[in-house]
């Protein structure tokens, strides 16, 4: 059965529109269904040139396909191989969510941890800082435990000469990691009160760790909304504020891509899934401490331990990242 107007005059219009609509879908989906879906769209566009309902349906379908590709929704896959692919995609999405969570959470936590060095916090801020510090420690341990088997599998594949598809992700990860470590240490050491300077009120977090977290998350700043104040910053610091999110994005993208492309045994996947659940619970604890700190004070400037609007916004985004990460962990376990 032929669709109307497929090869007739003016066929380029529907074809171009179909090509635009097709971009809503992820690359893997386009590779599998792109040609035939384009033909269906062309026929449909020729029959109904204007249909907002069709456009909305295709956009919605594209979003669902992207979420499915990211391992965030969709039915349980059939077969062990597909189940493994889906689990790795879900875990990679969780890793991205956790990175976003830690990027924003690290900014809040380091702010409190460094503030503790300058003046003793009250009970709520102190409890929140201690809980967040514990959660950070647990999350660092979980990240290490989760990363080791994947790194081992990636290294084994590269050693066997099957490095195709892993070189770029590995380079992105290592490059991002080096930039974050070197930059974080450089700018952390330049922060007054840390990097070997004596503290007024030693807190629960070693100064070097707090300063490193602070420097690594320097880009999470309300100064972006105040260009005049930002212009007074040293050029090196401004460059770091712009560069560090890119480095972090490279690190996370590389890790996620390597995870998606590396086959892991069912036992390792089960182990990773258990760690994913534990990470979500730990992030929930961290988030609870953050909200307790916010709820105890109205956001305003003027004190080391008073939250700003950026902290509230950060916690809101972290809640969203946690919800998405939890969904990914659930999908990985299916």
């Amino acid at each position, binding site marked *: 059965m032929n669709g109307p107007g497929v090869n007739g005059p003016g066929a380029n219009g529907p074809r171009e529109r179909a090509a635009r609509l097709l971009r809503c879908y992820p690359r893997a989906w386009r590779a599998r269904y792109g*040609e*035939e879906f384009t*033909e*269906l769209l062309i026929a449909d566009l020729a029959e109904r040139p204007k249909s907002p309902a069709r456009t909305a*349906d*295709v956009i919605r*379908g594209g979003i*669902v396909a992207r979420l499915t590709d990211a391992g965030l929704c969709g*039915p349980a896959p*059939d077969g062990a191989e597909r189940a493994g692919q889906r689990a790795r995609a879900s875990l990679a999405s969780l890793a991205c969510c956790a990175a976003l969570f830690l990027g924003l959470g690290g900014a809040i936590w380091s702010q409190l941890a460094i503030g503790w060095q300058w003046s003793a916090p009250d009970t709520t801020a102190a409890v929140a800082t201690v809980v967040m510090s514990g959660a950070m420690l647990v999350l660092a341990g979980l990240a290490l435990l989760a990363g080791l088997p994947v790194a081992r599998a990636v290294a084994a594949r590269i050693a066997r000469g099957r490095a195709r598809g892993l070189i770029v992700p590995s380079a992105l990860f290592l490059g991002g990691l080096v930039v974050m470590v070197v930059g974080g240490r450089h700018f952390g050491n330049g922060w007054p009160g840390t990097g070997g300077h004596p503290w007024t009120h030693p807190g629960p977090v070693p100064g070097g760790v707090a300063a490193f977290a602070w420097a690594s998350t320097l880009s999470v700043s309300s100064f972006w909304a105040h260009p005049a104040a930002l212009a007074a910053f040293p050029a090196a610091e401004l460059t770091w504020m712009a560069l560090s999110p890119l480095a972090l994005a490279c690190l996370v993208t590389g890790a996620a891509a390597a995870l998606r492309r590396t086959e892991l045994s069912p036992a390792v996947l089960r182990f990773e899934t258990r760690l994913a659940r534990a990470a979500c619970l730990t992030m929930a604890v961290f988030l609870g401490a953050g909200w307790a700190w916010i709820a105890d004070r109205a956001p305003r400037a003027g004190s080391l331990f008073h939250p700003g609007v950026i902290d509230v916004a950060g916690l809101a985004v972290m809640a969203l990242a946690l919800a998405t990460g939890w969904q990914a962990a659930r999908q990985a376990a299916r």
Partner: protein
Amino acid sequence: MAADKALDGFGRYAGPATLILASLAGGAKHGYALTKDIESFAGVRVAPGTLYEALARLQGQGLIEPVESQDRRRPYRLTAAGATTLQAQLDAQRRVADIGLRRLAQGWGPA
């Protein structure tokens, strides 16, 4: 996979999936042909995004399979598992329809 449970995970795509299976029971069809066939026997037009989401899920569950074709419009056909699932799905729908119709005929009236 139990045949009567096969479409349980389809959620909002269970309806379009049943229509697609019913259409393919009449022979292999590509996307546009499926749309027109479903429109002719069910009176509904399945939008392209919904159609392909349902097709992808059905294929993922092994209920349909693509047919080799040189054409850009790839046809799909029902598998044996798909036929069993469709049978179970339609039997369940018929049971509901029979009960509803019988009750309407026997006892329905304004309260």
